[in-house]
């Protein structure tokens, strides 16, 4: 083993930091509209055709890809530490990290697949 092994954390930290920016500035309005105001009828819900037209715009898809991919890696990075701290299971850190990052990678693939396959 190398006498001084470098931490791999900075790599994940870049994704986490960018994700934090996206989540803080852009997530609350998405939850407010999609998750609360539109289902409750306090905001208009555009029909499917008009939403699909918005999704067909490459800029929308680029925005959604960046938002969702950085957000899921942000969540994965934080959930790793939160799960270890909340349940006091820091010795299992490597296992928790594996689960969090594999899930984030799976969601990343799903995001790309869904946004590339827009009809």
């Amino acid at each position, binding site marked *: 083993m190398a006498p001084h092994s470098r931490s791999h954390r900075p790599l994940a930290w870049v994704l986490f930091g960018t994700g934090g920016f996206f989540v*803080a500035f852009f997530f609350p309005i998405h939850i407010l509209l999609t998750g609360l105001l539109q289902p409750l009828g306090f905001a208009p819900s555009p029909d499917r055709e008009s939403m699909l037209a918005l999704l067909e715009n490459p800029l929308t898809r680029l925005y959604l890809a960046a938002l969702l991919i950085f957000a899921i890696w942000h969540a994965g990075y934080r959930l790793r530490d939160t799960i270890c701290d909340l349940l006091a299971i820091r010795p299992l850190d490597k296992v928790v990290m594996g689960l969090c990052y594999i899930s984030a990678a799976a969601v990343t693939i799903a995001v790309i697949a869904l946004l590339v396959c827009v009809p």
Partner: protein
Amino acid sequence: MPQYSAFQPKPYRPRMSPFWFLDRWPYFKFIIRETSAAFVAYFVIVMLVQIYALERGAGAYAHFQSLMANPIILVINAVALGSIAFHAITWFMLVPRVFVRHTMGNIVPDLLIAAPNFGVWFVASLLIALFALRII
């Protein structure tokens, strides 16, 4: 002949309760703030399901909309919004903690230093709302 001492040195191993975060209010606040990560992951999945339903067809999209109107989902969304907004606001308010707060000999109030964050937040939210509601 081995030498035995009366007092055996034992390494100190602090034992932490799994409920350590209930000990003090700041610890609890820290955990509330950190669990917002779970709601971020939850809403990423919601948005993925929405995109999938949009692509699938009119029936699937109507089903997604009725799912969002479910009272349990509405409560989860309200809690998600609350915790993510709490995380965002506490993050925005960090700026005065790391920023030099003197201008021409006067201490600048915390809220004024954090104000640009809230301004950008408001403008970004307004823009997203205008696009998402198909107004522009």
